């Protein structure tokens, strides 16, 4: 029964994601389209749960399906479902599967299956999730409302802490997958992980030789800490993937100035903020980059784009942190009290924090194996050896994230290097592999292999 519930529910969400993509005039390969439609559909589902709760309907499977179908119909009203358009994928000769890719695909498949199995088999283990996202989701499903006893009665007995009031994406996904009948929820993370791998591999094959594309995906997959979070339910892994996709489309927008890429970037960045609240602080830099890239402050369209880029993510923060948590759930949120403006020994604190961010997180090989140091060396070779800044948009975003974490460490009390920065650092890795794929070094190497192969 749960499998039928899942098939119906996920199909509706997937078609909704596909309907969003059809409204954009970007062209994708079949793998890209499936993966983007899947992720956008799941993301949309979380907003549908909020919609159900907001109009005081019970949060259960029936209402979720009705709402999802209604949204699907709405998305197809102005632009009805067109079978030809839906199946119109860009496919050129260079995208065809090559026989030697099988080794990369098999390795990726084995690692993916192990992760998917562990995600399916085991219940939720992290303490943060059992007292946070899954605690809220479990009782929301049992009591058919997000405003369950977790928010109405439990605080009378115990201090809730900040775990139940995290940015809600993971919690809402847990609700959806529990409604689908999975007793532990969880499998949404496997799906997002799968779709990301599909998208990245498919896209990399377009820009670099398939052997290099496969190698980059494997380099990303064998990062121990990241891999562990593909089956542990937390907010951080999905946040890193959304941020990676958001920045990827931002880069495509920067290169081609297509509106479709702009909107895809906005959607994924919005999902990233919906997944981890701290992400909102990185986004205004994107607006500044938009103003800078058009080299004009007089064009109203440029200003509109710059504002919209930050506005949508900001709306999710307002929706959850102000409307939901403060006004509806009356949860105890104390972030403002945790901000400090201590500027004593500022220079020493800055340098020691930077040193610790590297020593205690980024250079800890048990966490990342070769996943950080490898791309760092390759990036250095690319910049110095090839004297190229191609793809440096990804590095710029990585620097923005690093700099903002430094600011958080200096000015927010509960932010720690061991936990907050370690998990926040997940965001670097999708950016690093995207950077390498678009770097001059990989492009040149790729051209050489392709030419050699075809001579």
């Amino acid at each position, binding site marked *: 029964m749960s499998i039928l519930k899942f098939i119906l529910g996920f199909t509706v969400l997937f078609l909704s994601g596909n309907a969003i993509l059809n409204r954009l005039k970007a062209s994708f390969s079949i793998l890209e389209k499936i993966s983007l439609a899947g992720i956008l559909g799941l993301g949309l589902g979380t907003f549908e749960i909020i919609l159900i709760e907001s109009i005081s309907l019970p949060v259960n499977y029936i209402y979720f399906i009705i709402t999802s179908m209604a949204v699907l119909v709405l998305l197809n009203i102005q632009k009805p479902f067109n079978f030809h358009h839906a199946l119109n994928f860009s496919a*050129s*000769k*260079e995208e065809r599967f*090559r*026989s*030697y*890719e099988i*080794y*990369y695909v098999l*390795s990726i498949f*084995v*690692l993916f299956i*192990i992760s998917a*199995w*562990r995600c399916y*088999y*085991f*219940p939720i*283990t992290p*303490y943060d999730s*059992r*007292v946070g996202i*899954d*605690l809220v989701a*479990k*009782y929301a499903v*049992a009591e058919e409302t997000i405003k369950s*006893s*977790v928010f109405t*009665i*439990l605080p*009378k*007995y*115990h201090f*809730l*802490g900040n*775990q139940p009031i995290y940015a809600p994406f993971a919690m809402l996904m847990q609700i959806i997958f529990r409604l689908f009948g999975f*007793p532990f929820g969880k499998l949404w993370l496997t799906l997002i992980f799968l779709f990301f791998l599909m998208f990245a591999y498919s896209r990399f094959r377009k820009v670099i030789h398939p*052997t290099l594309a496969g*190698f980059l995906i*494997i380099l990303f997959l*064998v990062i*121990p800490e990241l891999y562990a979070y593909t089956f542990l339910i937390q907010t951080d892994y999905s946040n890193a993937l959304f941020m990676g996709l958001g920045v990827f489309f931002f880069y495509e927008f920067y*290169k*081609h*100035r*297509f509106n479709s890429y702009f909107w895809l970037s906005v959607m994924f960045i919005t999902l990233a903020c919906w997944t981890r609240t701290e992400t909102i602080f990185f986004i205004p830099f994107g607006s500044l980059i938009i103003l800078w890239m*058009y080299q004009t402050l007089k*064009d109203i*369209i440029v200003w509109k784009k710059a504002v919209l880029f930050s506005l949508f993510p900001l709306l999710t923060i307002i929706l959850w942190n102000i409307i939901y948590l403060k006004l509806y759930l009356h949860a105890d949120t104390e972030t403002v009290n945790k901000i400090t403006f201590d500027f004593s020994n500022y220079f020493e604190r800055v340098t020691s924090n930077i040193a610790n961010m590297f020593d205690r997180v980024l250079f800890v*090989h048990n966490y990342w*194996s*070769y996943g950080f140091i490898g791309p760092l060396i390759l990036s250095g070779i690319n910049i110095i050896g090839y004297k190229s800044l191609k793809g440096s948009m990804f590095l710029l975003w990585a620097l923005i994230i690093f700099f903002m974490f430094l600011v958080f460490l200096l000015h927010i009390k509960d932010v720690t290097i061991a936990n907050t920065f370690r998990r926040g650092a997940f965001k670097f890795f999708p950016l690093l592999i995207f950077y390498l794929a678009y770097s001059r070094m990989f492009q040149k190497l790729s051209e050489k*292999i*392709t*030419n*050699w*192969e*075809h*001579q």
Partner: protein
Amino acid sequence: MAKQSKKHKAKTKNSARQKNTNLNNTPNGFKVFLLHIISIVALFIFANLPMNQKWLKGRIQKYLSNIPKQLNQLDFETRKKKKWGYDYAIMKFIKKKMTLSDTLLVPPSPYLVEKTFHKTKSQHFWVKPRVFYYHSNGIFNVDIENADSTLQKATHAIYVNNKKNNIRLIKIKNPVIRKKLLNTFNQYEIRTFWSKREAYKYYKKHNQ
């Protein structure tokens, strides 16, 4: 802006076309064979780099070898017991004995560690109130940090039988029992053990 986009589009198309002139040639069969060999060798070398080898042998191989066994243990109870261990077993026992209108008084973690660590060897001591609520399907719990008025609501309590050091569930039938339990629990500090090692250290220190 539209002009710029068109320019970019044309540029991309041109470079793609240039690329395709090369790709129109059929790949050289021998070179494809060589790419097979190169791919296998590259993956083999990458997998055997010291840190990757350690991770693949230590983690991935273990995960992989556990799958056949796990396929024979698919019922949800087994899976929960496997991951949540002793904590979950105790929780289940308590859930059976209590109703949703009851409230449980849980002792401080050090009390349980000191008295039962040698038996339970639990990784994460489950008495953290919100974890209890997660597992209890709606049964509320209180601990000594709560106000007196809240503590009065407790209908059941967990305590350790001094002779056998077994964890027991007791029904609080009168205020005298409640007071006695609270007096015992109040002798312990409120703290959380985040790891088995931390709990063991505490146990050793207090059981020498």
